[in-house]
């Protein structure tokens, strides 16, 4: 286990959006009203992380059919991930080390209090374990071989154009390995 941890944060007010920190694979996010706004846009951060605790302060409207929004950690081409996924009106937490060939997936019931509010969605990634929290409440934990064991990057995505995915800030702490 590492005895040196890395910590960083992303604040749209301080950093804006730049192509040296983020790769836009779909559309281009914009900064508005102090949020990073994604609408038909997908952005991956360039930092490679191995195990950490990541908090996304996210503002989403009530889920409806047609919505496809995701955020979490990903290795894009390998399609390895630990993420929150919102498809139509269903929220799930998911992990996969190999593009979904072997996958953990669990549904989380949407709480009306989360709609259109700044809510913290947290992923705690440990060796062989991924735990999901929303608004500081435990939601689910996977502890098996389907939790990735290779470096991942922070990502945010809103494939639909129905409404915005708004990111207020991202905090990443307790990172065991960090490279950019």
């Amino acid at each position, binding site marked *: 286990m590492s*005895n*040196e*941890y*890395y*910590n*960083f*944060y*992303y*604040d*749209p*007010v*301080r*950093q*804006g*959006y*730049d*192509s*040296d*920190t983020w790769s836009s694979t779909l559309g281009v996010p*914009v*900064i*508005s*009203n*102090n949020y990073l706004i994604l609408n038909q846009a997908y952005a991956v951060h360039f930092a490679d992380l191995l195990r950490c605790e990541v*908090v996304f*302060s996210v503002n989403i409207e009530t889920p409806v059919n047609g919505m496809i929004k995701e955020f979490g950690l990903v290795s894009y081409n390998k399609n390895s991930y630990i993420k929150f996924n919102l498809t139509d009106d269903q929220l799930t937490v998911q992990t996969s080390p190999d593009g979904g060939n072997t996958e953990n997936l669990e549904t989380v019931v949407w709480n009306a209090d989360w709609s259109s509010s700044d809510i913290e969605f947290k992923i705690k990634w440990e060796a062989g374990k991924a735990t999901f929290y929303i608004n500081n409440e435990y939601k689910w934990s996977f502890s098996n071989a389907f939790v990735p064991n290779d470096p991942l990057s922070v990502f945010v995505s809103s494939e639909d154009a129905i409404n915005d995915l708004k990111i*207020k*800030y991202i*905090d990443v*702490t307790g990172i065991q390995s*960090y490279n*950019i």
Partner: protein
Amino acid sequence: MANKFISFKYDPTEEGYSSSMWRTLYGDAYVSNNSLVLEKSEIIHYGDILRGDVSFTVTIEKPKIDDNIRIGLIQYSLGAYMYFKIDQGGLSIETSDGIDSNSISLDWQDEWSGVPVEFRIKWETGLITFYIGGQWKAYVSDSTIPTKPLSLYAFNDSVSEFAINYIIAKSIQSYVVSTGNDNSEFEAIITESDKLNITEDITSVASIPNKSLTDDTSIIENVSVEIQP
């Protein structure tokens, strides 16, 4: 806990003021007389610091009622901070983890006025200690202590001059500098003090020859224009 610590300094004479290291939220920050001068300005450093011992050596005039100055550490959108604050003519230390906040008032000492004085924040796990001029002033050991990374921060919305002579940050447990900020896309942030206020009082008295005193003309105009975003 980390067993490797990071230290750095910021010296305006050596480094000047760089947009690749500092985000100017508004106003002007510039180097003058070997100091970083904040003229109605708010700046945040791009280094992400988790715990450490940070000293700001700054020159501040004796606090006035209209002064509004903050120096310390912040994570802006999270609303987490630990800083010295001068407001309404008073000095205080303020802490917040983004949810709960704490404030402790301090007495200003005349010997600090107008000369470089060290304002030091020692951030440890579960304890923040504040020093001024080498003297212990206050501590906080409650739930308001941030647990997330913060950045160097300075704010001046005063008529008084505020200058940073240098900053020393040492014993930092974790330090990451975000990159690529030079080409970032930002939105225009318009704060209260950015609003344009034009106020003119015009008094014109014209004496016309060969007329009696009662013919003197007096024109008084009060013009107030406020432009808001």
